């Protein structure tokens, strides 16, 4: 080789040694950083792969839904695969509020009455006895009611109406 042992090579070697030896290299850590770093890198690589996969799946799914023009097809197939009732069985999205709000309102109204119906079944003794006992006591106290007084309608007796409270 023509450049071997030339002055340039000697100067190169001298400068290289001087510059590299002048670098303040930190002493190697005793805590085996290579092992720790490997596990962190592994976790980072796995997490990054999962995140990228999820992003690609979402992107492809949205593109496919947009291209087909019927997002419900993919949604319903996914629902079926997950065991959820298909989307077609549900009311349409536009009319979802009014029918659902009505039953909820009617449920809200019906709930106390049904509760009052069910309450006696759950706890039959307290309320009828508390309310009925004075009323019944009075007929018992005066077994012969006055002829002008008509007895209270029987449907009021089992329990109070919601507006009574």
């Amino acid at each position, binding site marked *: 080789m023509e450049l071997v042992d030339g002055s340039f090579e000697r100067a190169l070697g001298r400068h290289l040694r001087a*510059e590299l030896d002048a670098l303040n290299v930190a002493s190697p850590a005793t805590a085996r950083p290579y092992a720790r770093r490997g596990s962190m890198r592994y976790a980072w690589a796995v997490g990054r792969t999962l995140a990228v996969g999820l992003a690609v799946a979402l992107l492809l799914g949205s593109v496919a839904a947009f291209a087909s023009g019927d997002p419900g097809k993919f949604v319903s197939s996914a629902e079926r695969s997950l065991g959820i009732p298909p989307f077609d069985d549900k009311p349409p999205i536009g009319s979802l509020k009014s029918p659902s709000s009505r039953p909820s309102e009617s449920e809200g109204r019906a709930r106390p009455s049904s509760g009052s119906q069910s309450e006696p079944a759950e706890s039959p003794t307290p309320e009828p006895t508390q309310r009925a006992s004075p009323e019944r006591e009075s007929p018992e106290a005066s077994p012969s009611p006055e002829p002008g007084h008509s007895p209270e309608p029987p449907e009021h007796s089992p329990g109070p109406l919601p507006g009574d409270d």
Partner: protein
Amino acid sequence: MLERAATPADVLPALAHYTPGVPADFDRLYRASFARVVRTLASIVGSLEAAEDCAQEAFTRAYRAWPNWEARVPAEAWLHRIAVNTAISYRRREQIRSLPSLLMRLGVPPTGPDPAERVHTRALLPELRRLPPKQAAAVVLRYYHGYSNREIAAVLGVSERTVGQRISDALAMLRSRLGESGSF
């Protein structure tokens, strides 16, 4: 006639005895060779911080491969090979990363180095960094570690002729940039 690449066991003396797969031996190798590996990498990647990062990555790779290390190959030569490959990958990644800024600079008149920076930075390492990484690795193994071409060929896994060509090309480029006299 085609040259056969010499194996490291043919040319490099075993400096210490290590057992593959034994963590304590890898710890010894790590402590013994960390600074040398960092200095080798600094001449390829250009900065000490990047060299330390590359060295850590190289030791991580080496630690994973440590059970498969063949004891007939000197451990430090094996380590240098991994480290040089890591530095080459680093340089490639860095080139890709710097591509957008390079494109943004297209058309802008080139600016010279900052005079203050020129005073404080060393002359040779930035020039080595401008070389192709394989040439820089051959230069530093030759002129810093003092390996012969045959030993470098064994470390890098190439033929002696390839090593000679790389060093010759690197020296020609350095001479044109630094001056013939070597008074850089």
